[in-house]
């Protein structure tokens, strides 16, 4: 018997996992058997849409990891900062011109000095910084409150780029060449710094961000009701418009980043940098600049996610916890996989919702189900569903 187990260890292990997966599926099937079709369809819709936002958050974490190997624990707070900046521009009827100018100038200064502070010694760069600052400031302040979307989008983009570049410049760049774990710990410190800044600048009181508002009724868009399927489903299912918008934006962001990584020189350089920073530098790639762009892009993605989440439930410091809920999605999809982030996000979203449908009392949906699925997947594919298999040659 012992000999048999030893000889067939691998097969037996797989058989065990398979049995566990089948048992889990049977359990879930049994639990769902008594539910109306409308509830199952509704759960699937909710999971898919919520999962899209999870995917967007996961994408930001993956982008950083893909380029630098750093797992960014500050991503949740980047979401909060981005959302708050958007709120500041979106809800204030008169934007402070000195404030907008300061934000524009700081952003342009950071952009122009990405490679080196010496860049400012060149007249052309100085003029570009000045022109860019004025243009950004103009876009942030032009017109009245009817232009709030332009103000908010420009302000948020500038704020996100500034945040990302500042984090990279002052927290991550000094650690180049140091153990990766040091940089990961640094992101924890950055999270606390951003937490503190958020509290000082915006306070801790919940803020209303009315972006998903129907101008005709001055309230949130009415959900789409699937009345045509009421009889077939045995009940009503609805689709919340703001979640659909968030989902569509998430998909667009994914497509954009997949194309960016595959077809642009900067995207290709990012992939090369993620493989080996020293080798990338040796072939002439400007690793510092690439890392800076990566952090700026991740902060921008975080800002989009923060705005969408804030628009859906209100802007509060709680938004930072969404990033924690997304960690299983990141690991499930694969730490370096852009498409994996989306698939992981959607799977976790759906699993959460079905877990809640089956047993909401014990928080099975949020506390248990995603991690059970994650464990099962990681046991079978340790690098995640779409992660790259690393082979270390000695």
């Amino acid at each position: 018997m012992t000999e048999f187990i030893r000889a067939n260890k691998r097969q037996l292990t797989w058989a065990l996992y398979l049995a566990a997966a089948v048992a889990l599926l049977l359990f879930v099937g049994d639990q769902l058997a008594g539910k109306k079709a409308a509830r199952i369809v509704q759960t699937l819709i909710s999971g898919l849409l919520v999962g899209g936002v999870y995917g967007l958050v996961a994408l930001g974490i993956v982008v950083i990891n893909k380029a630098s190997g750093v797992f960014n624990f500050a991503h949740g707070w980047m979401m909060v900062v981005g959302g708050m900046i958007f709120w500041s521009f979106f809800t204030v009827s008169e934007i402070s011109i000195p404030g907008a100018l300061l934000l524009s100038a700081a952003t342009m200064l950071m952009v122009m000095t990405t490679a080196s502070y010496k860049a400012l010694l060149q007249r052309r760069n100085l003029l570009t910084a000045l022109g860019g600052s004025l243009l950004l400031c103009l876009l942030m302040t032009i017109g009245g409150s009817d232009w709030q979307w332009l103000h908010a989008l420009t302000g948020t983009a500038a704020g996100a780029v500034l945040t990302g570049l500042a984090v990279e410049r002052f927290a991550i760049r000094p650690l180049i060449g140091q153990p990766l774990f040091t940089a990961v710990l640094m992101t924890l410190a950055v999270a606390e710094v951003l937490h503190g800044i958020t509290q000082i600048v915006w306070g801790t009181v919940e803020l209303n961000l009315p972006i998903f508002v129907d101008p005709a009724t001055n309230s949130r868009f009415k959900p789409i009701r699937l009345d045509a399927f009421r009889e077939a489903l045995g009940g009503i299912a609805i689709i919340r418009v703001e979640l659909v918008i968030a989902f569509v934006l998430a998909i667009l962001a994914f497509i954009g980043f997949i194309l960016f990584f595959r077809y642009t020189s900067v995207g290709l350089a990012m992939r090369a940098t993620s493989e080996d920073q020293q080798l990338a530098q040796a072939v002439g790639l400007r690793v510092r600049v690439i890392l800076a762009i990566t952090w700026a892009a991740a902060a921008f993605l975080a800002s989009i996610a923060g705005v969408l989440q804030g628009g859906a439930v209100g802007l509060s410091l709680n938004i930072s916890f969404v990033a924690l809920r997304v960690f299983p999605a990141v690991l499930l999809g694969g730490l370096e996989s852009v498409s994996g982030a989306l698939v992981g996000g959607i799977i976790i979203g759906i699993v959460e919702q079905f877990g809640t449908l089956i047993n909401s009392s014990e928080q099975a949906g949020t506390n248990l189900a995603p991690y059970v699925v994650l464990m099962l997947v990681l046991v079978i594919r340790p690098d995640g569903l779409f992660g790259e298999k690393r082979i270390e040659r000695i």
Partner: protein
Amino acid sequence: MKKLFTLLALLTLVTGGALSLAQDMVEYPSDMTECQVDLTGETFSIYHFGDLSGPNAFITQPIVAAVTDAVNFWNSRGGVCGAELAQVYEDTGGNLEATQSTYDRFTSEYGDDLDILLLYSSNDGELLREQLAEDEIVSVIAAGSIESLYGEDGQTPGWLFASNPLYINQFGFFCQFVAASPEIFPDPVIGFVTWPGAFGLAGTEPAAAEYCAGLGVEVLPNPQIFLPTDSDILTQVQNAIDEGANILYTNSLATGPALIAGTLVDLGMEDDIKLGGVNWVMDTSVGLLGQRVLRPNGLPSVDGMFGGMPFLWWTELQHPAIQFVTQQFTANQRSPVEQNIAYLLSWGMVDAIIETVIRSVNTVGSLDAMTGADAKAVIESMDYAVLGGLLQQHFAEGMRDATHNRMAVMKFANATLTGPATGPEDALLMPDGSGGQLYVPLVVPLTDFMPVPQLRG
């Protein structure tokens, strides 16, 4: 229903009276004990810590504002018996490890001066219950779980004294109201849709369900739990409805009740399913956040939501306590979002702490000689109208929570400020600063203050 309209009519008088309030300075409303000891040259600090930046920050942050305003007010009139009033506070972010380390730091750093501690979280209360007793520190807390106030057996009064009724008692009181209002709640079945944790799940104990069943109100056994970060809780709400609930009850704050109410509107069930909750749902933040979704009649989704209101509310401007706090709020240029439960209650808790200190010092002779045990003895013997009636403090016979409550309903003011609006046409709409408009939330009392049932076993 008749009662409802009568009380709404009362509100009309109340808010109408408010408009005619004179602009003169309102006297401090509390009938405080006179100082028999001069404390000039000394400093008395109000120590407090809690979640000022975590999940509950949006409701607790105004506590700091209120304590700051109260401290400044007292110092502007010569302090407490001549002693300067100060505050020492720390943000724990809703993190229990931070709570423990902050408590350790406070006790080691402030030692003998720390006799009274202001807390505002059930979780913190449960964590520190035994330590407070061991260190002989009295805590005045704006929360109420059984374990924090009465221990695991529910029978052992500790060193924490709550400003509200126990949450389980509040739920029992809600059941009383439901049972007494069959015209509003026919064939009542209550389902919990609530946050997790000591606060969220308070009231889901079997004793509460048994009590309600005795009144003819069924309570579903499985609470539906959601997190403050959830953006979609259709599944939880539908679970409760599928199990037969026609009333949803929640122990959640700000976004929580607003999300449930919005989901009911999304499902088109806002008239079929009633919504109620613990006293914290009757907050300005809920009234504002509940405006994201409008009911078919054009009013915010939380219009008509029921909740406990164990103290006076901002709209009860005929009362000197509310007149005084409102005046201080305005004078200190606080923002509208700070005009919430926590700001109001904190003025009351500071008043209660000062009264406790005065009585203790009158007995023992000096601030230095005062101990936590002295403060506890004073609080246990007090029958005190906090801030002249904002709430009643009566902790005799081993009570550690408030014994009275009243039911209220959230409504929105009409344009003439004479009562609740019936629709957007007659509603008072204020500009929100970004081109939109805001309804003005009102909390309308539906009952008098009445004893709550004691359900802690």
